[in-house]
């Protein structure tokens, strides 16, 4: 396992180096296009500076930005004891140093994500819609997937790579825009410089720059999506290993796939952190997708019949996909063996859509400080936090209830 994390880190660094190469190349090409050979170094410097600033912001505040932009609120064990229990169990299984912070997104869609640079400062978030529809084993599977992301340090790499993608896109757009609007002015400046050969070299550099500005974002995106998909498979494998019960995650993914509402607060760069792609509608081309097709993920998990170790996942993957391409190299070499176990006896799921909705609303109310007051006739009164009177009449039986403060 630790070996895997080490190799993982090396592979990710390799991929990031390729992306960084793209960024440097783009910087050089754009600089050259703008100001000739003198601009090469300047272009690289600007590209790296943009990357450094974006990386700094997203590493220091990225998790907070993601959590607040997805409107996740921290919750307490009283609101959902089972969620806390499940995360605590997985903390033990994964050997995390501290319990990740647990957030809930009050949203009817079905999704979950993890964030945080290191296992010490990690958070997990889940939508109330998903929480209301999963049984214990499924919840465990989903959380294990997220915690695997944390253990594998995926968030760090996906963030850095996302920033790289962001910088490349940003630089290219600025360049293409400025050449489009300012081409006349700059051409005049170049020609005033004199020598014929210089102008010719300048023209070649300019063409290279335009090509680079068009191709680099596409190239980096393909790398980025490949990285993201590998990480998803790896997190699935990690979840199976942690819970030793792949069926839990498989059946959770099935429920998630059946839901077609997109999560409105997600965007392209935050997408790899989610358990399944937060976008819906026509599936994107595989090459440009952050997540592998969910049906395939389910099929792989369901064919793990001999064990819960990473090597069993690799075997199931080979069976389903025909080859091992698409899996990170590190996972293919793992030899540890882990036994499967039986699922928990608690298979309770909400009886129907109505109870699920009611549960979601209750969590939202509890999280925002509502008081739950049971009446002897069976009705539970939900008192808003700004209700100031000392007592309230039960709407069904009329009993006067005092509100404990």
């Amino acid at each position: 396992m630790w070996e895997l994390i080490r190799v993982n880190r090396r592979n990710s660094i390799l991929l990031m180096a390729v992306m960084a190469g793209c960024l440097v190349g783009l910087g050089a090409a754009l600089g050259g296009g703008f100001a000739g050979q003198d601009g090469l170094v300047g272009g690289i410097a600007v590209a790296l500076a943009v990357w450094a600033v974006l990386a700094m912001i997203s590493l220091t505040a990225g998790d907070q930005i993601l959590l607040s932009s997805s409107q996740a609120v921290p919750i307490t064990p009283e609101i959902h004891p089972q969620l806390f229990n499940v995360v605590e169990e997985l903390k033990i299984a994964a050997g995390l140093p501290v319990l990740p912070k647990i957030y809930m997104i009050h949203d009817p869609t079905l999704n979950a994500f993890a964030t945080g640079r290191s296992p010490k400062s990690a958070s997990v978030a889940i939508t109330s819609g998903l929480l209301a529809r999963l049984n214990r084993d499924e919840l465990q599977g989903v959380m294990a997937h997220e915690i695997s992301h944390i253990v594998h340090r995926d968030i760090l790499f996906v963030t850095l790579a996302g920033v790289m993608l962001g910088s490349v896109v940003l630089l290219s757009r600025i360049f293409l825009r400025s050449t489009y609007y300012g081409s006349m002015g700059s051409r005049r400046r170049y020609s005033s410089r004199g020598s014929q050969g210089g102008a010719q070299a300048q023209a070649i550099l300019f063409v290279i720059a335009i090509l680079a500005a068009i191709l680099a974002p596409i190239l980096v995106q393909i790398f980025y999506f490949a990285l993201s998909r590998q990480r998803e498979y790896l997190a699935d494998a990690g979840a199976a290993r942690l819970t030793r019960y792949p069926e839990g995650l498989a059946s959770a993914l099935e429920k998630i796939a059946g839901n077609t509402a997109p999560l409105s607060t997600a965007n392209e760069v935050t997408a790899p952190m989610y358990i399944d792609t937060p976008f819906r509608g026509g599936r994107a081309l595989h090459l440009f997708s952050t997540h592998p097709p969910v049906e395939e993920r389910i099929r792989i998990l369901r064919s793990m019949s001999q064990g819960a170790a990473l090597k069993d996942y690799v075997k199931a993957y080979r069976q389903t996909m025909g080859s091992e391409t698409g899996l990170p190299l590190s996972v293919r070499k793992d030899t540890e063996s882990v036994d499967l176990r039986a699922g928990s006896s608690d298979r309770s799921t909400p009886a129907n859509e109505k109870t699920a909705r009611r549960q979601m609303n209750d969590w939202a109310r509890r999280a925002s400080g509502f008081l739950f007051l049971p009446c002897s006739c069976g009705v539970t009164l939900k008192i808003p936090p700004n209700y100031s009177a000392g007592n309230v009449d039960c709407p069904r039986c009329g009993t006067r209830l005092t509100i404990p403060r």
Partner: protein
Amino acid sequence: MLISLLVIGGLIVLLVLWAIGIYNGLIRLRNQVDNSWSQIDVQLKRRHDLIPNLVETAKGYMQHERQTFENITQARSQAMGAKTVGEAAKAEGMLTEALTKFMAVVENYPDLKANQNFLALQETLTSTENKIAFARQAYNDSVLYYNNKIQMFPSNIVAETFDFTKREFFEVQNAAEREVPKVSFS
């Protein structure tokens, strides 16, 4: 003469440094084993504390299941009295089995299954059992690593000199845990 003395002295220093390195490594591994054992121990104690509550809550609903309750109580007191890791593993296995049977019986009592207090206890119990299972894996991994280290050459020399002893695995005894679950293809 002086040179050969220096060479021998240098070799001795290197040997001592090497032994110190091995020794510290062994201490670290042993602490890791102790630490992962305490992780299990905490959960086992929590389970022991939960059982009286669970039995108390269920008793009112399940008048005719005296034997089930007796089995649980007996297994619990045996588990609490266990001295070594091996004994604990055996007794806890029996307790797990008794609790599994109990949970199966509970299915016949819909009133009990609707009791909020009981449901909360059941959730805590399930979670505790999962924690035991997960912590056990970590413990056994660290024991395997530690035992290998003190038996293999050359670290076994240092281990023997300073009296590092092998640790016991925490192995489950009951059949239900060992059995590989059936996976359905649908």
